[in-house]
């Protein structure tokens, strides 16, 4: 970002709800099925068909609203009319001036707060493929349409223009995704299109100035693309303004390969959607009891779950910056219950977090299925020194592959028995004797000398094929040096 300028970013996120059926008909809501196999008169817009609202979709929308601290309000549905074959009806049913959720906010891990203007329900469109010589829409001879996605329930979450950097926009998208998953409404898969992000970007000279003319960026398929496209777009607008030109309000397409945004259409050609109230749907008026019942089903939100782990670390003596990152990883992967269970059983919070963030996280799917009792038992053994770190990591690989097991029996089967103090002491003595020069320098101490502790520990580990306890080796080395 060029000095002397500030960017202003707002995001619109479309989230597909993971209901069993579509928003207004009983067709399956399935990604990846054979084209036009999940269709009926309603989602094909055949004359005489009537939409009936899916209760589960409404409850998921309310769950999202609750998770985003919104007011949940009486709402209505409108027809948004436009001429494009991705909706067979030639209109999309959406919420317009009375959305179900409004005036919320999302707090980001860095402590900043982003306003949520609204989170409304609407139906998804069918999928069009442009066929012909170029493969791109402008050269297409004709288009092919699959209506399986037509009518799939969506919630569109519109943020306030509260973000001031691409990093903050990325943090918002990441946190929002985690909240959507935690609310049970979405699988948050950007690559499958179940979460789609559009960015509104403008620039201004200083924070007190009115907002500049904005452009909307579409086709953002990852959080990384989101960040790159916002930076590109802000720079493009600044260059225009500095050369005395004006920013034209328009929709722009992000070209991931070229790393730039390209104009799609400007405001003059923008659609006039001729919204009017959908006559086939009655208002939705959730009462307090219903809102509370939905709120009661909500799981713990990511921010609360991160705070829960940080508290455990603080109880154990404090949280380093690296540990704060580990906490974010563990919560993002949904593995925080493993850490909580281990600490509750007496395992040190640092060890429980490290094993979960570094080892269990390498196969998060298996770790989420893992029997937490066997995980806790394994970490208890490592914490007590019955297993070395190397041994514990090896057993964890087996536990993850098997979905659980008895770590005591597994350790025995592998011959992982902790070394006795005597045999450890004799191994340490042996490596010391065979490396007299290094030992002398170690005994001299100082920064250089102390570093050799790692050298000796490595030799002991090699000699014992990882069976020695690293801490016990350090203690023994220190004892020998002092004697």
């Amino acid at each position, binding site marked *: 970002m060029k000095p002397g300028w500030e960017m202003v970013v707002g995001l619109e996120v479309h989230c597909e709800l993971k209901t069993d059926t579509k928003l207004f008909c*009983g067709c399956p809501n399935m990604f990846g099925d054979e084209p036009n196999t999940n269709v*009926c008169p309603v989602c094909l817009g055949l004359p005489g068909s009537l939409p009936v609202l899916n209760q*589960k979709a409404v409850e998921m929308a309310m769950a999202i609203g609750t998770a985003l601290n919104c007011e949940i309000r009486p709402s209505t549905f409108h027809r948004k009319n436009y001429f494009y074959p*991705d909706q067979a009806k030639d209109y999309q049913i959406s919420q317009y001036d009375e959305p179900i959720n409004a005036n919320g906010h999302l707090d980001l891990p860095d402590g900043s707060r982003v306003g949520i203007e609204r989170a409304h329900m609407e139906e998804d469109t069918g999928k069009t493929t442009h066929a012909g010589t170029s493969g791109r829409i402008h050269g297409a001879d004709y288009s*092919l349409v699959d209506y399986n996605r037509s009518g799939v329930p969506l919630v569109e979450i519109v943020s306030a223009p509260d973000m001031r950097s691409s990093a903050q926009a990325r943090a918002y998208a990441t946190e929002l995704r985690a909240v959507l998953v935690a609310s049970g409404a979405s699988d948050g898969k950007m690559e499958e299109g179940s979460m789609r992000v559009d960015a509104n970007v403008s620039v201004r000279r200083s924070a007190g100035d009115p907002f500049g003319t904005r452009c909307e960026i579409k086709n953002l398929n990852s959080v990384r693309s989101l960040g790159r496209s916002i930076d590109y777009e802000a720079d493009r607008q600044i260059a225009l303004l500095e050369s005395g030109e004006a920013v034209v309000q328009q929709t722009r397409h992000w070209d991931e390969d070229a790393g730039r945004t390209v104009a799609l259409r400007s405001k003059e050609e923008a659609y006039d959607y001729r919204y009017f109230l959908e006559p086939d749907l009655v208002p939705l008026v959730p009462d307090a009891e219903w809102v509370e019942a939905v709120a009661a089903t909500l799981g713990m939100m990511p921010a609360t779950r991160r705070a829960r782990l940080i508290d455990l670390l603080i109880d154990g003596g404090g949280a380093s910056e690296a540990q704060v990152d580990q906490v974010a990883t563990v919560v993002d992967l949904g593995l925080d219950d493993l850490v909580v269970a281990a600490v509750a059983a007496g395992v040190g919070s640092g060890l429980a977090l490290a094993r979960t963030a570094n080892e269990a996280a390498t196969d998060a799917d298996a770790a989420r299925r893992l029997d937490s009792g066997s995980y806790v038992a394994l970490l208890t053994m490592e914490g007590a020194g019955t297993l070395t770190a190397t041994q514990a990591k090896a057993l964890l690989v087996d536990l993850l592959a098997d979905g659980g097991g008895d770590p005591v029996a597994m350790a025995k089967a592998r011959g992982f028995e902790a070394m006795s103090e005597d045999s450890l002491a004799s191994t340490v003595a042996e490596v010391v004797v065979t490396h007299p020069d290094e030992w002398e320098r170690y005994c001299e101490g100082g920064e250089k000398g102390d570093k050799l502790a790692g050298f000796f520990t490595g030799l002991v580990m090699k000699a014992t094929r990882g069976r020695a306890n690293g801490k016990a080796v350090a203690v023994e080395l220190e004892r020998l040096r002092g004697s």
Partner: protein
Amino acid sequence: MTEPGRLTRDDVAHVASLARLHLSDEELDLFTGQLAEVLDHASDVASLDLAGVAPTAHAMAVVNVLRPDEVRPGMDREEVLAQAPSVEDHRFRVPRILGEAP
């Protein structure tokens, strides 16, 4: 057509183009007159004093009409595609589209 707020011929041409309707000059004149009469009727209602009357979304005093999230059989694909003028790859084949989706 000079009265303030009254529907103009240009308004009708604009709405027709949004709906991709090609109207002749005679049709534009005809529909401008007809639609203006409909809107005049609506403006009669708008002239009533409705302060304190809550907006009505629907003629029926019914809210929260919902169905359970249960899959119901849809239509057979062959039957569906048999209704289409043109089909390719089990998809509806439609003419080249100008402009992008909203």
